[in-house]
């Protein structure tokens, strides 16, 4: 099929997507690189000039930097682990012969339709609040002290909230994949006397590998940039206990209004994200016959 004309057609059809995405990427990127070497504080326009690598040095030397990186990885890893493990379990459960599969699916995917700032606000105020939250009332009801989620377990709380938002996405993809698994295969294994666990281990899980890879890839890209939920719930605290790299950048750009430093942080984040993506593709690319 790879004739001359089809090669040309392929280039022509690809061109619009590639060109617009290239512009969309390169213009802000170029501006960001430029700003990252400038002294640019929004509120002090008279103080300008070249900063050399000072913005980068500040960012990397900032006491929060390494914590922010490990928190970012923790957030991505934690959410991935929770959504995939529970996604698989819930998909398996819904895929069983149960009454009301349609309504069930609707209930499970509904968190996906809630805007992230709303989701964070609901969890913070109506559930995790140490005096008025439902979880505090439950704890008091059984004679326990309420857990101070956002004060004592800030990172875990943020991971939990984000996981709730993304669980439907993972579940949906895994469920779709699961439904394509032929029942003959399972039945044959059952005939051979394979237990439920080994059926899962040797038939279901391999079948889901691709779907899991897709979930990891897409979610990672979205999760690497998360800061809104953190801003709503913990403000990166207490201290900097729940500060992630995107939140650090957000703070520089929006609160400190130091565009130079925020830009330097952005460039660092892009480099790190690409490193993560590279290793992701190295370790899992073969699962995607892309």
């Amino acid at each position: 099929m790879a004739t001359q004309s089809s090669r040309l057609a392929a280039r022509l059809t690809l061109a619009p997507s590639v060109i617009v995405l290239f512009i969309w990427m390169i213009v802000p990127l170029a501006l960001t690189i430029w700003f990252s070497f400038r002294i640019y504080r929004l509120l002090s326009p008279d103080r300008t000039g070249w900063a050399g690598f000072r913005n980068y040095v500040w960012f990397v030397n900032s006491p929060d930097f390494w914590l922010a990186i490990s928190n970012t990885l923790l957030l991505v890893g934690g959410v991935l682990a929770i959504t995939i493990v529970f996604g698989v379990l819930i998909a398996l459960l819904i895929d069983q012969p149960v009454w009301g599969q349609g309504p069930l699916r609707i209930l499970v995917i509904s968190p996906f339709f809630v805007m992230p700032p709303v989701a964070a606000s609901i969890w913070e105020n109506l559930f995790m609040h140490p005096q008025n939250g439902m979880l505090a009332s439950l704890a008091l009801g059984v004679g326990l002290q309420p857990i101070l989620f956002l004060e004592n377990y800030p990172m875990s709380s943020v991971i939990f909230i984000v996981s709730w938002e993304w669980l439907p996405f993972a579940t949906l993809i895994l469920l779709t994949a699961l439904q394509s698994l032929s029942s003959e295969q399972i039945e044959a294994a059952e005939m051979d006397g394979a237990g439920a666990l080994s059926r899962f281990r040797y038939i279901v899980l391999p079948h889901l590998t691709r779907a899991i890879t897709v979930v990891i890839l897409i979610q990672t890209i979205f999760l690497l940039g998360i800061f809104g939920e953190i801003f709503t719930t913990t403000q990166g605290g207490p201290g900097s206990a729940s500060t992630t790299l995107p939140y650090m950048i957000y703070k520089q750009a929006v609160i400190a209004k130091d565009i130079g430093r925020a830009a330097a942080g952005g460039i660092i984040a892009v480099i790190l994200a690409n490193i993560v993506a590279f290793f992701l593709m190295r370790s899992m690319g073969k699962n995607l016959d892309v």
Partner: protein
Amino acid sequence: MARAVTPRRKLLLTASAWSVALLIFFPVLWTVLTSFKTEVSAVASPPQLFSADWTLENYAEVWQRSDYPRFFWNSVVLSVGSTLLGLVIAIPAAWSMAFVPGTRTRDLLMWMLSTKMMPAAAVLIPMYLIFQRTGLFDSRLGLVLALMLMNLPVIVWMLYTYFKEIPAEILEAARMDGANLWSEILYVLTPMAVPGIASTVLLNVILAWNEAFWTITLTTTKAAPLSAFIASFSAPQGLFYAKLSAASTMAIAPILILGWFSQKQLVRGLTFGAVK
């Protein structure tokens, strides 16, 4: 996987599946319930369910306080517009990747996805400047473009994985019959990929609807969608949870209802090529 099971087992499975589903759904349900309580009742501890003061006042107030229909309409225009525009650009690209794969197809896809890796806050001022200088600030066109470009990588990828499942022979047969490239894509490929396209559309409408950083930052009055509507209801003085819940319910209800009606489509098409 529909196999015969004993009624008892089915009952047990149904019960556990429903408990899990209700647990996941509960926060959404609670938000809706809270939206019908008075502010005092909304923050009562222990939480009130049967003893709560029920009221419609929150909705009346939210409705009166802001121009909901305008925000709603903007949300519709932005999410649907960006998705359709994305399809127009992405279908040819996905065709090319699926049927004339080059050695660099995979790199290209990864590069497209990597355009989403810049943290939003880092490009806040660059984007602001670009939108200001091009006159796209607070215009629906500008936001449609921005949302389209944000989601384009996902659209291309999803479509590509569908198209790959369509046997190339069918397209070749069409070409033998004299179809040119455009009619091949438009009349042969697209109809065959309808389930995939449908779920691509749905997923992207949802992602665009829920986008709550750029849609707030790059708009003022003309193009502001429901995310901006929500941002006017959180954290004022005094009690606000019931009103916030009412506003949230109004913001998520349309997309929730759309999702509910189309969940079968969504599930059928969300394969990302994971189905063999």
